[in-house]
């Protein structure tokens, strides 16, 4: 570990050499920044990982079954386990996908599950990302570089190798591929995650494509190549649903593939992740994930949610209004909403306003207990300081199996008072070591 710290500069130079960057828009222009890397890894023991792995697999399997149900028979709505309001009012629910079963029956192939570890030692799920979770490329490339800079560390610690992500991704794509090549579909060079798109294409042996490289003919997707057009069997797309097909979704989209939906509907191409997954990673639906696990799998959830209340239910509403000053309130409405509010930081008047808003539109809010989570050490200059950090675990689901990548993206906030650990907010990342014993 000390060796990792000593080699911080070398590692950063290596990261610069490989252009490990993410893009941000500042004052309307595009800049690329190096993603700050902290050399002190997060370490997860084998025993702890075993639980995490089982819990994550369980959760993602249940979420996939939920999606299959929602775009199919909707049993879970019919018997009232999930109120239909939470589905039909969700901006991520796409009725255009009703009745379409994706190749292999998989909806969320690449799931990014965000967790934090509480001071009580338990892991809590913060949110599920089932649309286009990003970030796997950073720990993936960092590991290779760290092994180079600090070979001793890796000789003396039994750390599970995480450099197989490209193969895992490829295996996932191959398992649902309907016949043809695999492509990674990027909106282009000026996307925040372009580095990742191109790196994952290389690592998984897929072709990197932009919209002008692809077209749909006779309900099949093709890649324009100098050797004639090639059929695409699986498309790992890094573009949001609404921009993917201007003839089905947002008509103004210039970065989509016209009539892609017709190929998908015919079962002629696998789309990773499937369209319409937003209904399952909605902040409101989060509350129901433990119920889904019991409902679809008949199992008790292995990993916990942060304790969550839905003002939609009268009982929860009363609790929320009574304890508003110590809860976190999240606005489920996507845009133009209140965002995330910490009750403890609101003035009296703001609390009253929030109460009125909750009473007016209870479905729009969820409230959670504030989790006191464990801080992680990071290096600030030569000083070791403690900062908030989360873990994004990557779970890959193919036609046959669900695999948890033995790694993950640990993001930390640089601002000591901030709970937000987003890369675009100036945070950084560290490697995540899963010990093999």
């Amino acid at each position, binding site marked *: 570990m000390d060796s990792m710290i000593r080699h911080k500069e070398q590692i950063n130079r290596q990261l610069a050499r*490989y*252009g490990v960057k993410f893009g941000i828009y500042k004052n309307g222009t595009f800049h690329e920044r190096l993603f700050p890397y902290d050399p002190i890894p997060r370490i997860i023991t084998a025993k702890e990982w075993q639980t995490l792995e089982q819990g994550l697999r369980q959760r993602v399997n249940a979420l996939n079954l939920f999606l299959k149900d929602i775009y199919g028979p909707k049993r879970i709505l019919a018997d009232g386990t999930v109120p239909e309001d939470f589905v039909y009012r969700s901006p991520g629910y796409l009725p255009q996908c009703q009745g379409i079963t994706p190749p292999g029956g998989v909806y969320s192939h690449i799931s990014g599950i965000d967790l934090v570890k509480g001071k009580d030692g338990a892991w809590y799920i913060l949110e599920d990302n089932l649309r286009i979770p990003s970030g796997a490329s950073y720990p993936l490339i960092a590991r290779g570089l760290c092994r180079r800079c600090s070979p001793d560390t890796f000789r003396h610690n039994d750390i599970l190798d995480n450099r197989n992500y490209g193969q895992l991704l490829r295996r996932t794509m191959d398992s649902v591929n309907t016949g043809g090549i695999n492509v990674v579909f990027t909106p282009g060079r000026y996307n925040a995650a*372009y580095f990742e798109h191109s*790196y994952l*294409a*290389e690592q998984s042996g*897929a072709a990197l494509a932009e919209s002008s490289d692809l077209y749909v003919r006779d309900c099949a997707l093709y890649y324009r190549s100098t050797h004639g057009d090639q059929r695409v069997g699986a498309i790992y797309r890094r573009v949001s649903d609404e921009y993917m097909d201007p003839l089905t979704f947002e008509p103004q989209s210039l970065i989509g593939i016209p009539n892609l939906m017709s190929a998908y509907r015919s079962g002629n191409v696998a789309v990773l992740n499937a369209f319409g997954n937003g209904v399952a990673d909605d902040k409101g639906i989060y509350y129901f994930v433990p119920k889904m696990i019991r409902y679809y799998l008949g199992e008790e959830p292995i990993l916990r949610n942060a304790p969550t209340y839905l003002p939609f239910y009268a009982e929860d509403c009363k609790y929320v209004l009574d304890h508003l000053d110590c809860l976190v309130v999240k606005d489920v409405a996507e845009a133009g909403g209140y965002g995330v509010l910490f009750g403890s930081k609101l003035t009296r008047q703001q609390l009253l306003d929030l109460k009125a808003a909750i009473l007016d539109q209870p479905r729009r809010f969820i409230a959670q207990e504030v989790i006191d989570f464990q801080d992680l050490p990071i290096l600030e200059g030569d000083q070791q300081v403690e900062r908030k950090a989360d873990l994004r675990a990557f779970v890959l689901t193919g036609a046959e199996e669900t695999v948890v990548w033995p790694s993950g993206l640990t993001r930390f906030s640089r601002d000591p008072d901030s709970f937000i650990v987003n890369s675009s907010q100036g945070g950084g990342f560290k490697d995540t070591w899963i010990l093999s014993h």
Partner: protein
Amino acid sequence: MDTITLSKQNRLFWLGRYSERVHTSIQLMMEFYDSLLDGSGMDYQAFCRKMGIPCVYDSGEDFCRRYLFDEESQYSIVSAVEAMLGNGMVLRETISSQTLAYLQMAHSAMEMASRSESPMVELQWVLDDIMAFRGSFDDAVEEESARNITKTGGMVERISLMLRLERHPERVEHELRKLLNRLYKTDLTPDPAALKTITDRALDGVAVDRIALLSSVECLFHI
């Protein structure tokens, strides 16, 4: 992945042109810089005229500085480095991360040079990184036609600069032959009229006016 799209052809071609432009121009600038030391100076106005770029420079020193490092100018070498890296970035899975790293390093070296009091030392790194890029590119890009597109782009750029700047006229014929040799190994479709002019000049020794030849080289590919 050994299939390339039409848009990738374009990027491969320009990757070749920009890497050659950076390499040749930096060598030229090193000569200029050196001549400034003796006070012999250099005719930067003639240079701008021949290159067909606006001469907005106050002095030889100003020219050396800004032609190299002015990020605002589309004609500067630093802009060419940016374009070289940009084309490389969108070809990662074709040229490999290993190869792209050399372009990234050339880009970083250029940045260092722009901040340095003795930029020529750092510029040497840019040249080294481009040479390493070429080696790595040859090694990593399996598909021959893709490899040859970039090399064809490089040849086009080299000949274009030779003709514009009237340097090494005795080598033009040789370089043209190399270009023809390359382009037959690609899937590119050359402009027939331009190809004829070049073939006449290279293989049959037909006399062609320099400017006409330059325009044929520049118009050889519509990409």
